């Protein structure tokens, strides 16, 4: 379109400059596509194709091990809402586990890093070192975090119960085998692990708040709390909404902590949704059911993200 209209107007002097600039991006018409080609190949195979393929799978009774994969329409979805279905009750139990985890971990992961960021945003020697300390655990994989905290929280030989005992508190808390302790064992290590990530994002946001606002607040006689409340918080609003959103999305796909720390215990009450989905599809090979579940989980996540943006995204001065 753009090319043909340009060609039509080629005679007029106004477009001469445009043409020259188009020519200056020379190297042939295909150059941009050649530059894009390697990425688009990978993107097409592993993002674009599966985006449609996944929906297709969810509409079939797709047993990986069987040759026939009959079309069943929305049955994989409706099945999950029937009380006598094969996967429904376990799936919703795992969704509840992920929901509980999200509701308990997100408030901590939105507020604590904000406090840490405000402290680390002060000018003082050694700031970079402290920042590194709090960011450090985040560079480790969830598998390391999982096996480590499984050990620290071991009810019999773990260091957590050892120190609780030393403080005169009960030293036989079943962190990894009973509720509500299981939730603490999932949320606590997760907060410890990812706190630094949110802190770094907050720190970048704090840099963008102009010094002048703080100076003005000071001139008006505001104390530290007042300037935090009336300068920092409003200035950081978009960043807080962003952190809230990515933390919810991240918690919604929690997997490793559940697999390694509580190992789903007690019974399967702390088995996360994504663990159940992956097991159904990639261990029991019921891929149609698993694909349908993955879309239901995604729908939840998308709706929550939209709600967050709708109600908090806009500035309300």
């Amino acid at each position, binding site marked *: 379109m753009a090319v043909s209209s340009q060609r039509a107007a080629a005679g007029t002097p106004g477009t001469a400059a445009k043409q020259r600039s188009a020519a200056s991006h020379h190297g042939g018409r295909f150059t941009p596509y050649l530059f894009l080609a*390697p990425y688009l190949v990978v993107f097409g195979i592993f993002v674009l194709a599966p985006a449609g393929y996944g929906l297709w799978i969810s509409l079939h009774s797709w047993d990986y091990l069987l040759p026939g994969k009959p079309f069943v329409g929305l049955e994989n979805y409706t099945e999950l809402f029937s009380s006598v279905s094969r996967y429904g009750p376990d799936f919703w139990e795992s969704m509840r586990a992920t929901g509980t985890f999200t509701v308990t971990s997100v408030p901590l992961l939105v507020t604590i890093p904000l406090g840490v960021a405000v402290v680390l945003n002060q000018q003082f020697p050694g700031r970079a070192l402290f920042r590194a300390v709090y960011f450090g655990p985040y560079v480790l994989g969830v598998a390391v975090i999982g096996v480590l905290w499984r050990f620290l929280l071991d009810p019999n030989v773990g260091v957590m119960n050892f120190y609780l005992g030393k403080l005169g508190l009960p030293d036989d808390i079943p962190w990894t085998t009973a509720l509500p302790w299981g939730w603490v064992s999932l949320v606590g290590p997760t907060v410890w692990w990812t706190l630094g990530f949110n802190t770094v994002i907050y720190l970048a946001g704090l840099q963008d708040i102009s010094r002048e606002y703080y100076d003005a607040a000071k001139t008006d006689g505001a104390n530290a709390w007042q300037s935090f409340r009336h300068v920092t918080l409003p200035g950081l609003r978009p960043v807080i909404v962003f952190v809230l959103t990515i933390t919810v999305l991240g918690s919604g796909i929690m*997997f490793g902590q559940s697999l390694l720390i509580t190992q789903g215990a007690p019974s399967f009450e702390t088995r996360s949704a994504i663990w159940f989905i992956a097991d159904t599809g990639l261990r029991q090979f019921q891929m149609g059911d698993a694909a349908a579940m993955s879309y239901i989980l995604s729908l939840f996540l998308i709706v929550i993200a939209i709600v967050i943006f709708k109600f908090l995204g806009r500035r309300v001065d």
Partner: protein
Amino acid sequence: MSRAETSGRAFLREQFQSKKGTKVIVSYALLILLSLLYIAPLLWMLSTSLKTNSDAVQWPLSWFPEQISTEGYSTILDPAASQPVIRWFVNSLVAATAHAGLVLIVAAPAGYALARMHFRGSRLIFATLVATLFIPPVTFLMPNYLIVDSLGWLDTLWAIVVPGAAGAFGVFFLRQFFTSLPVELEEAALVDGANRFQIFMRIILPLSKPALATLAVLSFLTNWNDFLWPVYVLFSKPNLTLQPGLAILQDAYNTNYPIVMAGGIIASIPVLILFLLAQRYVVEGVARSGLK
């Protein structure tokens, strides 16, 4: 460096002499105490990895091994060990390095085209990339398993290296950086008769080393730490990477914590070293990825 140190010392002297001195000391003490508490779990992992099994569960627990023991390490680093940790380590290293390289190879030219070239379909491509960012990754799990299977990549490192490079993050990240470079250099080179490819290779890439390094480091870390995907697409023991390997170790030695902690240390060392060396890149990359 030394200048920062002197000003730091001057700062401290000033603080000590002022009335606020005590407050500063208390704040520092508190901050240091909290920081030590914060890294205590990692120190405990290290200390336990150097204990014997009986020492590790000996009540009362001690922060220091009674006698430094490398039993945990030697059990799993034995080439003939039932859990081939060395093999897993090499697999992880190969996969994460190859992945970081692949990300740069595909994302850099694509990011450059989107930053600097005007062509038919550019807006559509850009919009498509943005749109896919909103698809929750969990929906890719089943279809990508089948796609990787049909490529014959199940239970191979290809499955770990390639699919992740399709993410649009690297393209956006580099496009953003290329856009910020002054366009005059390229125009001068064009006048001198250089073509796009030469400009990209000789001007853009050398100018973009910090951005390329940041993306490479972040890609390496992500790939090294990836857990769910390798747990399901790799299944024979010699083909595993370290992260699913740790889950196997936990299963196999569920009461022998020094061995499991030694595995954790081995899986942590490369990323901790990388973090210490490239801290600025990592932290700035994360901050920028957040705020675009």
